[in-house]
């Protein structure tokens, strides 16, 4: 049944349905409504788990690491500065192969201080060993949590996962959302069955010291698990589709890409605006389509290449900047790597940083730029502010 729900509350409902035994989080805009609602659920007895009120994000994820090692299903959520503060633990959680699911309500990083949306925060942890999947709207953001737990906890994966949604744009917007029943989720998502477990009777150390003679092999194994996660994701999303009817089976998703000469590549909520812009451009006879990247880690290079086969120009919308990189955007670098053998024109266009709106006319302009071969650059820059 559809309910009008705020994106954050839809995520909180999803988390509740996954029955986490431990929730540990520190409130930070624009993630606050998610953890506020979860705290209420625990206080009201609707969520039978422990809510740990920590004093910082570092402690939030550290307590998740401990709880997950002890065999609990755990949850956290954060964004921006909070995620940056967690960074050390982010890498440790992946190295210890703890299937923690954490929502990232994507927000810009300071300085200057900015609480609004871009995707710099999750992207800067792209090499941490966490999976990263991006929801376009409240429904997808919600559903990806069910898939994320099942995926992270599979023994051939065992990697933590960020479920990313654009701060404010998705987190604070009310939308109709189909919330599954507890029975349905219980059928889809079995209880967490840990491979190892902290136990006083059989003591274990997690994330042990590894000398130069074996550290590299541990890193190799983490990467191998990340590669296996692609097939595992597809399997689980197919199961989800069969049960709930909503289709997230692709690590990427094409929109009107058939016969497209120019393609936009994007992640997250901007895909919705891009689809509207594409519809209008198609009506005007332009052969243009969208490739939505749902999973940034693992990065689905083969799917990207297949989906963009025959496309002449590719414009990647970047809500991030890899400062100092010639191509500017972190997503573009990956897309270019995926398609370079097919030699299309491919450009990163950086914009929407720190919450600046990206409008349909911006997207149309980007498409025009890609057709003209305009090189990687910012869009929507206020030239009058620049010296």
């Amino acid at each position, binding site marked *: 049944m559809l309910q009008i729900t705020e994106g954050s509350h839809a995520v909180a409902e999803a988390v509740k349905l996954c029955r986490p035994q431990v929730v540990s989080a520190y409130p930070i805009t624009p993630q606050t409504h998610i953890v506020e609602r979860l705290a209420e659920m625990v206080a009201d007895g609707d969520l039978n788990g422990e809510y740990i009120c920590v004093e910082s994000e570092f402690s939030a994820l550290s307590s998740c690491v401990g709880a997950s090692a002890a065999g609990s299903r755990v949850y956290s959520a954060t964004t921006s500065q909070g995620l940056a503060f967690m960074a050390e633990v982010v890498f440790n959680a992946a*190295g*210890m*192969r*703890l299937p923690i699911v954490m929502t990232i309500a994507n927000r810009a990083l300071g300085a200057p201080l900015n609480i609004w949306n871009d995707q710099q925060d999750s992207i800067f942890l792209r090499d941490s060993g966490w999976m990263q999947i991006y929801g376009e709207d409240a429904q997808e953001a919600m559903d990806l949590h069910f898939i994320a737990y099942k995926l992270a906890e599979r023994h051939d994966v*065992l990697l933590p996962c960020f479920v990313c949604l654009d701060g404010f744009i998705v987190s604070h917007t009310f939308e109709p959302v189909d919330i599954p029943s507890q029975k349905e989720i219980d059928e889809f998502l079995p209880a967490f069955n840990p*491979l*190892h477990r902290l136990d006083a009777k059989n*003591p*274990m*150390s*997690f*994330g*042990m*010291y*590894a*000398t130069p003679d*074996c550290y590299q*092999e*541990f890193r190799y*194994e983490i990467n191998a698990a990340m590669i296996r996660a692609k097939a595992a994701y597809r399997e689980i999303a197919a199961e989800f589709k069969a049960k709930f009817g909503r289709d997230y089976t692709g690590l990427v998703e094409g929109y009107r890409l058939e016969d497209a000469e120019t393609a936009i590549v994007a992640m997250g909520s901007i895909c919705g605006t891009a689809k509207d812009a594409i519809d209008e451009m198609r009506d005007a006879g332009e052969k243009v389509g969208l490739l939505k990247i749902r999973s940034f880690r693992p990065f689905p290079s083969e799917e990207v290449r297949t989906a963009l086969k025959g496309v002449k120009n590719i414009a990647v919308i970047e809500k991030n900047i890899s400062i100092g990189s010639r191509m500017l955007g972190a997503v573009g670098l990956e897309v270019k790597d995926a398609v370079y053998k097919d030699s299309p024109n491919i450009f990163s266009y950086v914009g929407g940083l720190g919450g600046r709106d990206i409008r349909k006319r911006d997207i149309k302009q980007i498409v025009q730029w890609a057709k003209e071969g305009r090189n990687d650059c910012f869009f929507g820059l206020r030239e009058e502010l620049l010296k």
Partner: protein
Amino acid sequence: MALNVGAVAAPGHARNNKTGSWRVFCPTLDTAKCNKCGTCALICPEVCITLSGEFYSVDYDFCKGCGLCAEECPKDAITMKKEEK
């Protein structure tokens, strides 16, 4: 160590890492000067100096050669000698 998911191991596992191989300078005890006060054993950050038999001795499998024992010895009974390997 054996590879496993999450680098999980039983306690005491670090004993397998023979960190003594890192050593450049080797503590050597002059038993004529030593009064067996035990300061070296107390100060050793690796806890690898123990009373064994008549005198304190160093477990060279784990001694990294930091030299704290020689520095702290009130009788200057320990000297750090460049190790020949």
